[in-house]
């Protein structure tokens, strides 16, 4: 049959099961957009291409399926870059399709020509430049296969305009995918398993470090079985949250820079660390030279290039976590470790991290209260999509995720502006789920234009803006490490109520704790997207905190006499508010390495 390249593109996408794409049209991708009308595809028109990539990403993280973003050449493609890098650092499977100038014009600095495959090469798992209609079908199939298999990641396909326009004789490509250089079956050998079993059975003070690999590998059941058979406590990475239930008695909580103090302490005192699909990011290790000095280390990962990249390990087990755990469970002896668990319980006793939850209601609205109440009032399957900053860390600390894929957050790249578009993407992947956006006043303003996308699509989200009048996380670093010199961190917000209304959406302002539950209920029961502006304490900080480059157990704790300054008035002129005197003396560590 005769088909134009543009038609082949949609036929190939449809065969991959795609029914929704997020994008923005333009000259070089126009043939593809024109052909789209003849296929059963829902196109979500974004307000900025960064949003398209984040939506594809949110779609992927909420469902485990590949998300698709589409953009034109030049500025359309470069606008995708932040979203692609976000997906790369968090191993999220997306496919981005960009238009490119006609092949004959490549290299001539043609209108809206940029070298997109060159620009995105280091931030994609793989990318393609397609100049012939004949190659579109096979390329799409390969792209989807690469994006979702092994360690997932973003793949970009740049298609020249002439390839979209050319008409060819076309038969759907049904041959098996042949990618001889792409192997996802690299594996460990028997001796490595034996070595691991020996360490596991011998360990007195083991800690499991569970990362996003648990979720990608759908290994929740195996982790549970492993944990219960070995009675090993589990520490979670940010991206791992939800992969192992927070409510399980052996789940210690989050590790790392803003992790629970007892978790970091347990890691530092462990004699064995078992990494389940996590990559020893600097945010979880602190100072590498002093990281878990007495622990032997076993690292399970599907990506061989992760083993001993940051932390030199004793055994690397390369493979799909689910399969690797099955082998380990079958071979290990299983035992009880009451002494070690009691010891960790003892550590919890001294920890101050939860203080904020027990603080009396004195008129302050603490972000932690908002998130704690949100958690209490929403169900286990609620999806929370966060932005980046203090609110993100409070979410991780106070919202207890019990199910995989219920927390969607930009971890590796820490991309502000991620939350709203990612939540829109999640909405299309999970039409029935309750979805909450938790964003800071800074990050929300970065991609707030996507509210208009919500309105145009008529979709329902619940949006909680944790409005502290600051780029809070940066302000916190300035408070701790730069003598409270708040350079460029006070930020003005628009009237979010009016902003919501301007988009035909609902809005609310909340400034006391007593109002939180009602606001949450109102948002949930409203049929339209609801923006709730939570006017929280302005100069609160995330505790505990391991300063960048410090040893993992050197944590800054919430000041003892529980800093409760007089309530700050809530008004729109916040950015001009003079800087308050220190609420307490915080150890001047002087460390700010990153």
């Amino acid at each position, binding site marked *: 049959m005769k088909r134009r390249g543009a038609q082949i593109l949609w036929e190939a996408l449809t065969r991959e099961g795609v029914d929704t794409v997020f994008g923005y049209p333009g000259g070089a991708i126009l043939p593809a957009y024109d052909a789209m009308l003849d296929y059963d595809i829902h196109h979500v028109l974004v307000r900025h291409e960064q949003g398209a990539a984040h939506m594809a990403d949110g779609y992927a993280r909420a469902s485990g399926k590949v998300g698709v973003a589409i953009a034109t050449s030049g500025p359309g493609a470069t606008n995708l870059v932040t979203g692609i890098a976000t997906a790369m650092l968090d191993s999220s499977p997306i496919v981005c399709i960009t238009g490119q100038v006609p092949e004959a014009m490549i290299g001539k600095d043609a209108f809206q020509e940029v070298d997109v*495959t*060159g620009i995105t*090469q*280091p931030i994609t*798992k*793989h990318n393609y*430049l397609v100049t012939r209609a004949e190659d579109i079908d096979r390329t799409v199939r390969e792209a989807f296969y*690469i994006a979702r298999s092994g360690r997932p990641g973003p793949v970009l396909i740049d298609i020249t305009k002439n390839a979209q326009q050319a008409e060819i004789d076309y038969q759907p490509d049904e041959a098996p995918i042949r*990618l*001889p*250089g*792409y*192997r996802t*079956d*690299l*594996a*460990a*050998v028997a001796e490595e398993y034996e070595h691991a079993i020996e360490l596991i059975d011998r360990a007195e003070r083991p800690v499991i470090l569970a990362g996003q690999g648990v979720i990608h590998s759908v290994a929740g059941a195996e982790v549970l079985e492993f944990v219960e058979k070995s009675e090993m406590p589990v520490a979670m990475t940010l991206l791992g949250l939800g992969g192992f239930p927070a409510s399980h008695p052996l789940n210690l909580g989050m590790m790392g820079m803003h992790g629970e103090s007892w978790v970091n302490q347990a890691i530092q005192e462990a004699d064995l660390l078992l990494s389940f699909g996590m990559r020893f990011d600097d945010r979880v290790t602190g100072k590498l030279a002093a990281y878990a000095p007495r622990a032997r*280390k076993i690292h399970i990962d599907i*990506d*061989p*290039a992760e*083993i*001993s*990249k940051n932390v*030199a*390990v*004793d*055994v*690397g087990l*390369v*493979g799909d976590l689910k399969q690797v755990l099955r082998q380990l469970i079958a071979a290990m002896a299983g035992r009880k470790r009451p002494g070690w668990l009691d010891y960790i319980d003892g550590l919890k006793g001294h920890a101050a991290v939860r203080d904020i939850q027990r603080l009396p209601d004195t008129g302050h609205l603490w972000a932690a209260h908002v998130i704690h109440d949100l958690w209490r009032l929403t169900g286990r399957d609620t999806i929370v999509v966060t932005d980046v900053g203090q609110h993100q860390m409070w979410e991780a600390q106070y919202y207890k995720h019990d199910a995989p894929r219920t927390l969607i957050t930009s971890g590796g790249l820490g991309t502000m502006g991620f939350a709203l578009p990612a939540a829109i993407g999640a909405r299309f992947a999970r039409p029935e789920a309750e979805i909450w956006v938790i964003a800071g006043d800074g990050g929300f303003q970065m991609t707030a234009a996507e509210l208009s996308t919500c309105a145009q699509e008529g979709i329902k989200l619940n949006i909680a803006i944790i409005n502290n009048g600051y780029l809070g996380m940066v302000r916190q670093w300035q408070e701790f490490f730069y003598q409270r010199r708040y350079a460029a961190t006070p930020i003005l917000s628009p009237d979010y109520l009016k902003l919501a209304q301007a988009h035909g959406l609902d809005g609310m302002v909340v400034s006391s704790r007593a109002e939180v539950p009602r606001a949450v209920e109102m948002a949930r029961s409203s049929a339209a997207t609801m923006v709730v502006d939570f006017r929280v304490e302005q100069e609160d900080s995330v505790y505990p905190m391991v300063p960048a480059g410090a040893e993992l157990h050197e944590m800054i704790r919430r000041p003892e006499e529980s800093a409760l300054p007089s309530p700050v008035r809530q008004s729109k002129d916040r950015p001009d508010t003079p800087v308050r005197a220190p609420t307490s003396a915080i150890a001047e560590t002087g460390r700010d390495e990153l």
Partner: protein
Amino acid sequence: MQPEKQNREQQHRHNGNGQSGHNGKRNGARAALRRELHTFVAHVEDRPGVLNRVTSLFRRRAYNIDSLTVGRTEIAGISRMTIVMEADAATARLVEANLYKLVNVLRVEDVTHEPTLLRDLSLIKVKANAEIRPKVMQIAEVFRARVVDVTTESLVLEITGTEDKIQGLIDVLQPFGIVEMVRTGIIAMTRGADGIPIDPGFVHARVPTNGDS
């Protein structure tokens, strides 16, 4: 001099007179960090952009490539790269793993500790008038280099061999005046009957661990 018989170890420890920066690097204080020259042989798909993907991997980590060569193989559509880089054992394993991750890379082998033939080819243009010419030609003979171009004022020598054999020739030619020189970089092939399998059934993910030296 029989450079052909030298194995990898010898070449890396006894190499040249240590006068050039190039040689100094090998014998210097970094030996304490147990860094050595690693030779990787990579089979890659012969497609546009593949070389860029490979070099990018070194560039972004600020690793310096000592030598890189690419050429066709006995199989159509497959090229072979020889990459030489100074690294400790763990870094070398990571480089190998990252090369492997590239979709267009079929096979990577670190042949550093295998018995391996290493060859470099060089063209050297030397100032040589009628008076000097016999001396240069005599030297060429000793090194088994070939004279491939002659003018009244110059000679071009072609030499194939290990890096240090070539360096040896360069050193003795220096006093005559080297007009220009070009080297191909190292190509490598393991000794023995076996080739490097491009599409093996099982690949053990060789990862660096504390057990490594």
